[in-house]
């Protein structure tokens, strides 16, 4: 009884959240509803006795994916109203596809009948938790697929680096030999100041004479953006 009540509780909230995700006007709210939906789905998994999947759902989807969504929504300046523009025009097409999929689901579930001779999957005994059971499977029987999935992730990582890492030659990186070769005389200058003269009267702060604009690789000076005007003061 209590199981059923919790099931219906989680399921109702899940469906409501899913509706809010697509209908919420504010994209940040939509992502927050998505997160709430994930939590409820995790609850459903717990009721079904799949505690590993429930935890993975929370860790991966809530902890990583949804937060990433949130970052994207908040950081990128996407005009969501513009994205919504074609909604009325495309709604009939979307609805038609949705109805077709729903009809298929009803059709298949309504006549749910397995191929004859299919064995019911055997559950591991109560002495094995399903985390352990899954672990045994993926590290023994399905080790090839598990490693191949690892390669898929590696390729994704290479892709992210290849497509976004830009080697900027004008970047100012640490140049250790240059730092070691520095002498006090290069960087410090003793000046005799008149009494009462302020920084302004002396022409502003003095910038380092050299080494200030040193870059990782020698670059064409013309390619550099123009210095800001205040940097000229020390020159």
């Amino acid at each position, binding site marked *: 009884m209590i199981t059923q009540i919790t099931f219906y509780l989680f399921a109702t909230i899940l469906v409501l959240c899913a509706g809010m995700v697509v209908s919420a006007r504010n994209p940040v709210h939509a992502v927050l509803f998505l997160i709430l939906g994930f939590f409820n789905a995790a609850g459903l998994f717990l009721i079904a006795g799949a505690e590993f999947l429930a935890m993975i759902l929370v860790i991966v989807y809530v902890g990583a994916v949804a937060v990433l969504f949130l970052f994207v929504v908040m950081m990128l300046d996407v005009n969501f109203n513009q994205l919504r523009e074609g909604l009325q025009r495309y709604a009939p097409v979307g609805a038609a596809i949705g109805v077709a999929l729903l009809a298929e689901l009803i059709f298949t579930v309504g006549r749910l*009948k397995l191929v004859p001779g299919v064995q019911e999957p055997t559950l591991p005994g109560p002495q094995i938790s399903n985390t352990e059971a899954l672990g045994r499977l993926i590290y023994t029987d399905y080790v*090839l697929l598990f490693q*191949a999935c690892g390669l898929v992730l590696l390729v994704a990582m290479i892709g992210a680096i290849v497509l976004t890492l830009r*080697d900027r030659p004008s970047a100012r990186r640490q140049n250790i030999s240059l730092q070691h070769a520095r002498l006090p005389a290069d960087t410090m200058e003793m000046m005799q100041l008149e009494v009462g003269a302020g920084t302004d009267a002396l022409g502003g702060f003095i910038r380092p004479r050299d080494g200030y604009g040193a870059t990782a690789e020698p670059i064409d000076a013309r390619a550099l953006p123009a210095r800001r005007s205040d940097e000229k003061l020390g020159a």
Partner: protein
Amino acid sequence: MTVPFNWSLALPEIVLSVCGLLILVIGVFQRKNASGLLCTGLAVAAFVATAVLVLGAPSGVGYRGTFVSDDFARFAKLLALTGAALSVILSLDYNGRQKVDRFEFPVLILFSTVGTMLMASSENLMTLYVGLELQSLAIYILCAFARDEVTSSEAGLKYFVLGSLASGLLLYGISLVYGFAGTMEYGGLRAALSDNAPVPAGLVIGIVFVFVGLAFKLSAAPFHMWTPDVYQGAPTSVTAFMAGAPKVAAFALLLRIMAGPFGHLAPQWQMLVELVAICTMILGALAAIPQTNIKRLMAYSSIGHMGYAMIGVAVGTEAGVRGTLVYLATYLFMTVGVFACIMAMRRNGRPLDRISDLSGLSRTHPLLALTMGIFMFSMAGVPPFSGFFGKLMVFAAAVQSGLWTLAVIGVVTSMIGLYYYWRVVKVMYFDAPEPAFDRGARPVGAVAGAMGLVTALFLLVLGPVTGAAQAAAAVLFR
């Protein structure tokens, strides 16, 4: 649990993956401005070593029914490795001139090939999916490799979005099949479906979804929309790769699951495959006619070829599978050759891709024109060249099984195809010459020449290739 695990079956895949990881490490630690030569050379060496291992690989099922090594897998793997190695060799010069010669390029092609090999060896729907994802993901990245060009980024994004959709469909189909048949192993599926009991409708829907997902990767007709844009936008070195080996792998997969686990349901899906094959052939022939860009033309040409090769799947007999395999072998060599020729099209350091740029090629570069002409006639299916034999075999298989419609439409669309291939030859031989191209790199010329020789003298190797294809096809019908 007395079934042996058979670790050694996947030795070629393991060796290739480890080589990929090593090349990646070497690439990261080499000097900043080092050329891509070292990593490219190592990748080619890895491909050759893997091909040797594939040749000597034992047969059998391993990894608890997720992996199979047989003649069919070996045939597909050798084709895929050949295509990958050739396109890596071709890419070296092109990428260097386009300033995209980063060491990740051969590494990504290598991992894509690992995925291809997994697909060819799949004995379980999960292996199929993981292999397909590994292969596709690497290609999405490769398409966007020239990231400073807007066309390349567009190609990558377009392929990625549509490819993800296709993966979703495939996965939905797999889950339906699993739900109704209770297993994802091909052997188990075959046993479950061979009973004469009526098949649940959900299972058939699942098979249709799986077929659609694979048809997308093959760019078969209703799912071809991405092909021209992606082929045109991606760097030519990437197009040369993705038009070859991945197509072969997707076909190998399609043949394996359609003839294997779902073979008993042939009456249920045959109509669908026939329709797709017919649409693909007609679209490939008609849509190619107005094209002015050689890469787009090749995209439509490749769509058409997929249609012809799919005849063998629709037939669903041993002869049909053999025809498709021979067709794929000839297609691979022709495609690599054509793209080698396209890479040689470069004037004042800028790559060209309009058909009119080929004007009068016979006077400025007689050898290049001759090679290109051989490929064009071969793709059209003119007799002494390799393309003819592939077409002949699939058409013959269709006629033997009484599928006259397919064969007749195939012959008619080949005639239409001859028109647009002939147009390229006409531009090369009869139009007023344009200024000469830049001096080409030696490897590109060598690959184009070698592929031209294979295509022109295919008759000499027809026996061994057909024999290997026959052995491969026989495995599926045991």
